[in-house]
């Protein structure tokens, strides 16, 4: 009946969610749908590739996607963009594997992708989207159904839920309980990938105290990641340095960062 600091009356206490990258990689099983954020969570991807995971459906773009394809982990790509920017118009492994028929493509685009992720997150059987009406997207991806809206009869695409089994992300900081705070904005579509996924692992530059999270609760971008992995500089191997400094290093101010930019 006495009050014990940090413990509940029944003697239990809050469980931390920190695991290592080997355990985190084991969450991804053959055949699952995997979503990968940007900047790429390379510490986690490295272990996935070492484990030789197969037959993944991957929601990703750019070079981390290409690496997973090159490593033979991928059966299907939810693809809105597989290019590498200037000088790399099409990611090479993606291009080769698709042209050889080694991997399937779930053809989409950014708006359709985020719409499908949002449908999953909101437990809706579909969400409508207009971008893509008139294009070949619903022909080459029969999961996108053309329909007439029930109020005005306008032509729209019905996008089904896109639900990753596991989402892997990289961020600046988190506490031991899964509260994640990005420095600057979260990258690309990371928050959509988190909301839609069954489970999310976030590798972070630093694990910070819960009190630091509480000092600015509005800065918490992911409230309740399922696991946190310590991975200082854990995205550096693939990202451009400038992306890295913008998004990942938590302890520098923007003006300090600008030295590196």
């Amino acid at each position, binding site marked *: 009946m006495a009050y014990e600091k*940090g413990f509940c009356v029944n003697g*239990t206490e809050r469980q931390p969610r920190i695991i290592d990258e080997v355990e985190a990689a084991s969450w991804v099983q053959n055949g699952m749908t995997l979503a990968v954020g940007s900047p790429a969570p390379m510490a986690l991807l490295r272990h996935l590739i070492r484990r030789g995971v197969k037959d993944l459906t991957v929601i990703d773009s750019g070079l981390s996607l290409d690496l997973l394809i090159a490593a033979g982990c991928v059966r299907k790509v939810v693809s809105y963009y597989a290019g590498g920017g200037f000088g790399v118009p099409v990611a090479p492994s993606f291009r080769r594997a698709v042209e050889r028929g080694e991997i399937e493509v779930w053809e989409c685009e950014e708006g359709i992708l985020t719409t499908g992720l949002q449908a999953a997150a909101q437990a809706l059987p579909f969400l409508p989207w207009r971008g893509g009406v008139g294009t070949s997207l619903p022909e080459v991806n029969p999961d996108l159904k053309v329909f007439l809206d029930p109020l005005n009869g306008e032509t729209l695409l019905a996008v089904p839920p896109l639900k990753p089994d596991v989402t892997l992300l990289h961020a600046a900081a988190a506490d031991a309980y899964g509260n994640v705070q990005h420095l600057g904005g979260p990258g690309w579509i990371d928050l959509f990938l988190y909301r839609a996924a069954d489970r999310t692992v976030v590798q972070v530059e630093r694990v910070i105290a819960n009190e630091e999270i509480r000092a600015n*609760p*509005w800065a918490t971008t992911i409230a*309740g990641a399922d696991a946190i992995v310590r991975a200082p500089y854990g995205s550096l191997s693939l990202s451009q340095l400038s992306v890295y400094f913008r998004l990942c290093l938590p302890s520098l101010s923007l003006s300090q960062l600008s030295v590196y930019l």
Partner: protein
Amino acid sequence: MPNDYSLQELMAIVLARDLKDGEVLRVGVAMPVVEAAVRLAHLRHGPNMELIFLGARMNVAHLYSLPMPAFGWDRRVVRWAESYSDTGHRFERLKDWHNHVFFIGGVQVDPYGNTNLIGVGPDYHQLRFRGPGSVGTPTLSTHVGRYYIVLNSHTPRIFVERCDYISSYGWGTGGADARRRVGLPGGGPKYCVTPLCVMDFADDTKRLRLHSLHAGVSEAEVRAQTGFALQTSTPIATTEPPSAEELHTLRTRVDPTGFLRR
């Protein structure tokens, strides 16, 4: 001493016992009994619970106490929060709400736990009593794993055969598949807790059923105050009174100013 408790304290303790560690507890405006309940459960046996007051999400099992009351509109709660989300963004991850628990009131409650926050009167355009509106309860009651109907009074005006309007669908017209039939993913209402008794829903019919009477309340009194025929489980239990431990934690750490005894 354990006999010396208020009805609001009893209701809070009854609710707290039914909440499980690891659950996410969503508390609306102006429900001091519910606020006390979730905080008591959190301190006693729920170190991994998450408490959400108006978008401020917190875990405060490690703190001796917090001000009480009343979170309601009082956004000081953000002082203890780990994250905050505004109304619209609160609905971004409904797929996970099977693990969420919620508490609802109502100006009317029918035998199947459907509730009404819209108003009273046969003609919607000429309401006798205009209620506050549904807030977010239709969405919450659709998606949470289970919810509790919690009322500050127990009268035939509240417990009616038929709600004039339904703002939250509980068990519809009854039957174990009542929610599946209309496609609602959440688990529906589990208990209805009032100052007189605790009611549950019969497994087959999903009709309200007298589960336990608070000490000193008779079955006849409950029936007289309920505007429809109430099933009973036999024998009717007495609501387990607060233990000395429960009251101690409630009064020292959750409600030291005695708000629930006023």
